[in-house]
């Protein structure tokens, strides 16, 4: 108990902060912060098992998040039949072509010695393959994008419940991580960072511009939900009785019957959105707890000890007969898959997929701030980092506004400088993130909850 005191204290403070937001701002805001905190925690856990367990630096988090989101679209949207009949065949042929090209290249690499001829023939194969693909795909893509472009203009998906996409998102992200890992894992740490960052940009470019698959910047809206809709709740009897019971004390104070009815209606509307958010919180909490149990088990298993050995001394671990590259690849895939789950959860919660909103600042660097601040190598630290940093990210604008008003209290609001500062309040969040990161790196380089290895 005593040695876990700092963990308990840190989490209690976090919970109190969120409850304070609920009391002073609104429960709606508090719950949406809480939900985003949970999603951030999942992303941070993914990054943490790569960085904290294995010392692998992955700046491609944005790409895996977007792939998870794409999975949500592909799983949940109903298929667009006309589009399939118009261009589906071309797309399927292209898919087979890609598989064939990859298999041929694999065959060449396996069966021939490394030489200039081999390199050039592979390059020639790839280039001619791309040209061939373009000629097959072009008519199909044009046909698909021409079908009702305002509403669909893409292939659609499988029409399954969106919750399955959380698993599929993990597979998508893991698949990408397999390819990226094969290509980039041999590189030195900071090159790996740059390479993964650039590859994630390529992924985003593809998602943004392949309209036949993702609708691109036209966005996919109105995705299915795993939780009930507010409008339905507001007309359901059991929900209204529930709200009535919950607020009975407040309602009894109002004697006028019609006043009481309006108040009740107001409460039902508020309550419905809180209820929906609570449903999401429950689902997300289940994911976080399952992942936490699994990652904790992994951390203290022989495999976890081996990962730490590889992280702390690669050469020694290699000499002990551990396959460093294989283990790196494995953990790279696992971590990315977890990030993919988070990406799918994010799209599920928002109910829309906006490829234009994936930016490295928000989805890569912010997550890294969470990992570093929370404490790399410690799962509880990673989750706490996700909570604390996201909380600060959202609440920094009100905090900055308060501080500016506090320090310039004597200055009239017509003052140019003050007006300018108040106008640029949203950008103080970058300042706070940066300062937070720099201070933590300087004075507590292992994070708020540092990694602790128990030797049993």
């Amino acid at each position: 108990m005593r040695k876990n005191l700092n963990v308990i204290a840190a989490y209690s403070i976090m919970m109190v902060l969120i409850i304070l937001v609920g009391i002073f701002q609104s429960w709606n805001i508090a719950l949406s912060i809480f939900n985003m905190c949970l999603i951030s925690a999942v992303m941070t856990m993914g990054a943490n098992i790569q960085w904290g367990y294995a010392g692998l630096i992955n700046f491609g988090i944005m790409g895996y998040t977007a792939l998870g989101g794409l999975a949500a679209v592909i799983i949940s949207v109903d298929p667009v039949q006309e589009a399939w009949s118009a261009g589906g065949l071309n797309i399927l042929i292209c898919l087979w072509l890609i598989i064939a090209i990859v298999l041929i290249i694999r065959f060449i690499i396996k069966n021939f010695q490394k030489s200039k001829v081999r390199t050039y023939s592979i390059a020639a194969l790839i280039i001619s393959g791309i040209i061939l693909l373009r000629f097959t795909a072009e008519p199909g893509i044009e046909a698909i994008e021409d079908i009702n472009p305002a509403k669909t203009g893409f292939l659609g998906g499988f029409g399954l419940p969106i919750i399955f996409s959380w698993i599929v998102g993990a597979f998508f992200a893991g698949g990408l991580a397999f390819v990226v890992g094969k290509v980039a894992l041999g590189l030195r740490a900071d090159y790996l960072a740059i390479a993964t960052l650039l590859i994630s940009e390529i992924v985003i470019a593809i998602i943004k511009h392949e309209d036949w698959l993702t609708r691109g910047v036209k966005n996919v809206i109105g995705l299915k939900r795993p939780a009930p809709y507010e409008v339905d709740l507001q007309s359901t009897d059991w929900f209204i009785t529930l709200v009535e019971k919950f607020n009975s004390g407040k309602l009894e104070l109002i004697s006028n019957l019609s006043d009481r009815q309006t108040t009740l209606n107001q409460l039902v509307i508020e309550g419905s959105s809180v209820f929906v958010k609570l449903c999401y919180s429950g689902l997300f909490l289940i994911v976080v707890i399952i992942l936490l149990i699994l990652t904790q088990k992994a951390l203290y298993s022989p495999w976890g000890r081996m990962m730490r050995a590889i992280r702390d001394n690669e050469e020694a671990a290699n000499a002990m007969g551990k396959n460093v590259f294989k283990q790196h690849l494995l953990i790279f895939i696992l971590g990315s898959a977890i990030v993919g789950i988070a990406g799918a959860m994010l799209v599920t919660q928002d109910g829309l997929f906006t490829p234009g909103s994936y930016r490295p600042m928000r989805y890569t660097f912010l997550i890294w701030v969470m990992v570093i601040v929370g404490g790399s190598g410690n799962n509880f630290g990673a989750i706490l980092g996700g909570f604390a940093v996201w909380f600060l990210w959202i609440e920094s604008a009100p905090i900055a506004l308060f501080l500016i008003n506090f320090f310039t209290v004597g200055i009239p609001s017509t003052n140019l400088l003050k007006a300018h500062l108040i106008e640029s309040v949203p950008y103080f969040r970058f300042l706070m993130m940066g300062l937070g990161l720099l201070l933590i790196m300087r004075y507590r380089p292992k994070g708020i909850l540092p990694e602790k290895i128990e030797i049993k």
Partner: protein
Amino acid sequence: MDILNALILLLNYIFIPALTYGSQLALGAIFVTLIYGILRFANFATGDMMSFGTMVTILFTWYFQSLGISLGVLPTALIAIPFGILFMIIYMLSIDKFVFKYYRTNKSPPVQLAMVSIGVMFVTQAVVRIIIGPSDQRFFDGEKFIIKAREFKEMTGLNEGLALKSTQVITVLVTVILVSLLFWFLNKTKTGKSMKAYSDNEDLALLSGIDPKKIVMITWIIAGILATIGGALYGLDKSFKPFTYFNNMLPIFAAAIVGGIGNPFGAFLGGYVIAFSEIFLTYAYKKFFMYILPESMEPESLVQLLSTDYKFAVSFSILVIVLLYRPSGIFKGKVL
């Protein structure tokens, strides 16, 4: 005549824009490479440092414009750049003193320094956005074109016009002058040579009496000059927007690594490699083929290898290929 038309077309839409863009990238890439070679970390704050220098330049430009000072046909920003450089150097040296120095003296691993540079990136981005705002700023004045497309057509009687913007000429000229000065400094002066020695082997350099503090200071000063000029030229030619500058960090990194990181000359050429391949691969050659091919063979499609949406993806793919087949870059930089 048709061949001349085709050549002018390529010159106008590929060669001149790529040369300008390449020069802007090259300055940034030399900045990255110097920091990497001498201070030994990947500086993720590159793009935002450039936007900081540009911001100061813009503020001074506006000040001069309000005073009525101008250079006539040349943009006022040219007199503002030295002031921008001055502020940039002060900013960089103070960042080094308060942030990077601690990790350097502690001999932290490069990854940690890269992480710290992310913190600097956040702070710089915040400062720029708080001071000048996140929106587009134009600060160009003076004569916009040296040759206008229509005048060129009338002058030569060709179908294709050639437009030459003054910012393009300024960019290329300033880059050439600055880079030749830099290479002269690095290769001929004693300080420059000691910088190279420090970059090659730190311990040996220290043994032979090179003062590391001086080297680090001079590196930041040169970096400040490069960042400000590179950023200001980009802003003059296109426009200034903090987010674009942050994004430019990616092709700049690509240029530095493709050229061989730690090797300034490689970075210089890397900038052009990236710029030319981006524009070559995303240009629609339909008109070009219409000029050089007989009428019966004219292409129907746009003859575009990749859509312009993939402009960034091109440079990153080049980077990935280079990392796979020649990780030390085209011009042999540091070995990974």
